[in-house]
């Protein structure tokens, strides 16, 4: 047995899980190898030191059910283990929840405000100021209004009763507005 194999088996040797033959081999190597013997001894030394240090540090530490938060009258035992998650939350988690809730609310608000809007001329109403931009056409070239509606277009009719004129504008999906009819003049 070499040193590498020996050190790999030190844990098993201490646990007593080696076969008799392996144990004999290991013992023979330990008897001949001071560094592996030191390794085995240091295992025991670590264990003692950890135990002593732990015992000293936790000597005053005990679990007092009367002092436990859940044993206090103002708190109650939750009905399910899942419900118990509230008990463990501290101040940090609370801050995080508030931040998350705020971020969520901001996103929803932004979606509500900006969602319906799309840039472009959509929704613009044809006024006299836009007259110059409009390509006019005579009533005799009028497409079938119903058909246009089906194609997703909207026909806006502006009726001026005093002047006795009616103007019709056609909008398409892209938001372009086009005058398609003018009745009552001439």
């Amino acid at each position, binding site marked *: 047995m070499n040193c590498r194999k020996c050190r790999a088996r030190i844990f098993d040797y201490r646990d007593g899980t080696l076969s008799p033959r392996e144990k004999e081999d290991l013992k023979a190597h330990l008897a001949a190898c001071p560094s592996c013997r030191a390794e085995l001894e240091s295992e025991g030394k670590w264990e003692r030191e*950890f135990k002593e240090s732990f015992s000293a540090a936790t000597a005053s530490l005990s679990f007092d059910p009367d002092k436990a938060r859940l044993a206090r009258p103002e708190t109650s035992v939750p009905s399910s283990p899942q419900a118990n998650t509230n*008990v463990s939350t501290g101040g940090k988690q609370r801050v995080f929840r508030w931040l998350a809730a705020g971020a969520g609310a901001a996103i929803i608000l932004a979606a509500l405000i900006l969602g319906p809007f799309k840039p472009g001329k959509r929704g613009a109403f044809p006024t006299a100021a836009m007259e110059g931009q409009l390509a006019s056409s005579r009533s005799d070239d009028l497409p079938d209004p119903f058909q246009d509606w089906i194609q997703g277009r909207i026909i806006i009719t502006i009726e001026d009763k005093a002047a006795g004129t009616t103007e019709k504008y056609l909008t398409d999906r892209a938001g372009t507005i086009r005058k398609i009819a003018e009745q009552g003049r001439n």
Partner: protein
Amino acid sequence: MIDRDDGRGRAAALGGVPSQGRTFVFADLAAEHGDRLVRAAWFLCRDRDEAEDLVQETFIEAIHAAARFEGRSAPYTWLYGIMRRRFLLQCRKNRRFSRWMGLVGSSVKTSDTAALERDERLDPMMRAVFSLPPKHREIILLRYIDGRKIAEIAGMLSISEGTVKSRLHHALRRAKTAINLERETSIVPATEKAHEL
């Protein structure tokens, strides 16, 4: 352990009382396993208050999950498993929280650093162990403080025996370095004082 029904339960083993019952009472669990669990929890959390919270949450979960306890392991081992799960969950929550706070540019003092700052009274060895990551602290706890065998630890942590050995090896190596460092730093003030005199 107080029996609550005639279930002749496997869970009777929880209290170590040879009687029937599958309902557990918080106070009984606390009396039998509380001290040992809270010490283990403190070793993992490094904070007394957090440890107490963790242990009582463990007991509550154990009370609710008592029917699922099959008696294949010792009651303490079963309770430790519950506590460990809750501790890991808490670690994940804290990590997430710290990451988020880092994103918004706020520095958060985690319970880790806070606990170390508070525990100035700890001896250099315990301070050194406390500077190790949780998985190394846990393996030291199970092996050297609880005195468990490699196979047993592997079963508890659901890892292979080889992984347990390798983790132990790394934990010890890091612990040695940290202990040496702690001992050196704890000596420095004394020598400085001597120079001043």
